[in-house]
């Protein structure tokens, strides 16, 4: 896995116990397993702790503006379809400021794999509420408990047209890696939500203990897709449903646009 890292730029900026490194490790193992050509992979990120991953990866890497990674990645992928394009971002980056790009990338079924590192908080800016902060949880901008209801991002992107959707946590590293590998192999828009700990801002403020305590929480609160099917909504309220949530085969944007190009040429020749 070391061959995928720009070791000269280590140590990384993440706090001790942060979940970002675990998610990154799972991504790199998945890439390694697929044996993809290192020169044909581009990783694109927005702004946030999780988005700093791109700096450490030895691929073509693009660290963009807050929330816009998917829009940059869309241009990149269209202009260079042979590139495998991966987007990494935080829950604030992808679901708040970048929420519109997320649903539209899903709608187009563009062949990009998006990994959302969901720590339920704005880490980089020191602990403000995100659209994935659960109701009642504390954040610097939700000092009396969060009044907003959180998104279920997986349901959102599925409804928007994503063809592969999965969720796992930093406790379930092996599963996370397998799901990311499946997502990478899906030709179309793939989305993996990786529930990850931010012990420094989310954990501390909400008295969730150390990073290890937060991982144990994921262990105790995760239920598989299959188990969830026989559970009531009330039982699922504080659970994290993990596994492959959705997978269908549908033509991706690139193949659809290839048809447009053919048609355009045919008509121009006439």
């Amino acid at each position, binding site marked *: 896995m070391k061959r995928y890292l*720009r070791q000269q*730029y280590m140590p990384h900026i993440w706090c001790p116990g942060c979940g970002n490194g675990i998610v990154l490790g799972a991504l790199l193992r998945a890439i390694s397993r697929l044996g993809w050509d*290192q*020169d*044909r992979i*581009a990783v*694109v990120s927005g*702004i946030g702790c999780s988005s700093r991953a*791109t*700096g450490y990866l*030895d*691929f*073509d*890497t*693009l*660290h*963009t*503006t807050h929330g*816009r990674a998917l*829009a*940059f*990645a*869309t*241009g*990149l*992928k*269209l*202009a*260079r379809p*042979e*590139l495998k394009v991966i987007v990494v971002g935080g829950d604030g980056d992808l679901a708040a400021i970048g929420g*519109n*790009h997320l649903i*539209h990338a899903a709608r187009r079924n563009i062949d990009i794999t998006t990994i959302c590192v969901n720590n339920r908080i704005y880490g980089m800016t020191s602990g403000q509420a995100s659209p994935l902060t659960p109701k009642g949880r504390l954040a610097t901008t939700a000092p009396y408990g969060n009044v907003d209801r959180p998104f279920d991002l997986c349901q959102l992107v599925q409804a928007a047209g994503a063809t592969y959707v999965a969720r796992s946590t930093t406790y379930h590293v092996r599963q996370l890696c397998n799901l990311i590998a499946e997502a990478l192999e899906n030709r179309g828009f793939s989305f993996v939500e990786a529930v990850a700990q931010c012990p420094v801002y989310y954990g501390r403020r909400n008295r969730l203990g150390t990073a290890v305590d937060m991982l144990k929480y994921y262990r105790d609160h995760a239920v598989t897709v299959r188990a969830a099917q026989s559970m009531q909504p009330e039982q699922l309220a504080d659970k994290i449903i993990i596994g492959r949530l959705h997978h269908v085969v549908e033509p991706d944007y690139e193949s659809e*646009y290839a048809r*447009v*190009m053919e*048609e*355009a*040429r045919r*008509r*121009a020749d006439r």
Partner: protein
Amino acid sequence: MSERGEIRLVQGNEACAEAALAAGVRFFAGYPITPSSEIAEIMAVRLPQLGGKFIQMEDEIASMAATIGASLAGVKAMTATSGPGFSLKQENIGYAALAEIPCVVVNVQRIGPSTGMPTSPSQGDVMQSRWGTHGDHPVVVFCPWSVREVYDLTVHSVNVAERLRMPVILLMDEVVAHMREKIEIPPQVETVDRPRPSGDRQDYLPYDDSSDVPPMAAFGDGYRFHVTGLYHGPSGFPTTDPEVADRLIRRLCGKVQRRRQQLALTSAHLVDDAEVLVVAYGAAARSALRAVREARSEGVRAGLLKISTIWPFPQEVLLSLAARVRRVVVVEMNLGQLVLEVERVLKGRAPVQHVGRVDGELVTPEEIRAALEGV
């Protein structure tokens, strides 16, 4: 290249789209907004015919982002918009300036602020095109006054963007964008490609500052480099070193500063014996030229400096012309934007009068004549 081009009656926006294609643009991302939509519509038809890609994005922020992404893949890329959309693009324009990604941004100005009075003409985005994104950054802005010039300046915008590795803004106005004129479309145009690296992949520094425009690899070519909107050193990796930061921003701004005279495009009309110099650009310059001619028939020795490069402001040309006149009249469809630059450059060497208009109507030759003749 003595081959004759095709004479066609084309609209400004159409000339812009065709010129971009001729200059090698093969990617366009946009979002509909009058009075720029024709550019996107023509690109939607033409690009796939030529093996290029067109995409209608979910908004102008995304259009700007996708344009930058495509350019990083090694493809000449462009986006077009108008007022409100230009405001939305600003953050990513700054990104392209800092990360040195060539691209062309067309802004067909309409009256503002906000939704304004759709879609009446205006020239209210002059300062925004210079300072719209935050921070010190280099800017090149061209402004055409005819369909012919739309064509030529679009080609030039693409070439300058590529040569200098930066975003270039083509600032049109509604009048020029929707006007139809007969122009000769050249069979081919001179094109410029961004500098490419030639050395070993391992040694590649995407922001090598041994020259002021470092060679640019494309994603997918095996160079495996990092691009960021954070301040960065030659390797592209983020830095907080004040010295490196200072060198970076000075180099970026210097790219344009050092080439100011080369970039300055202007044309002077009837200035040889002029006592009063009109300074104008875009559609307002058309009325200005007419006013100058009419004033001359009344015995007023007027001349026109028509400006095509708004930023960097062509100060040397203005200074040399203004040295010979008694006074200067700046005509623009706003309450005074480029006039500030004229005053800055002239430093009181000649009195400067402003003729402005913000009611959504094209400034008329009569208004300008009143300023020329009514001393």
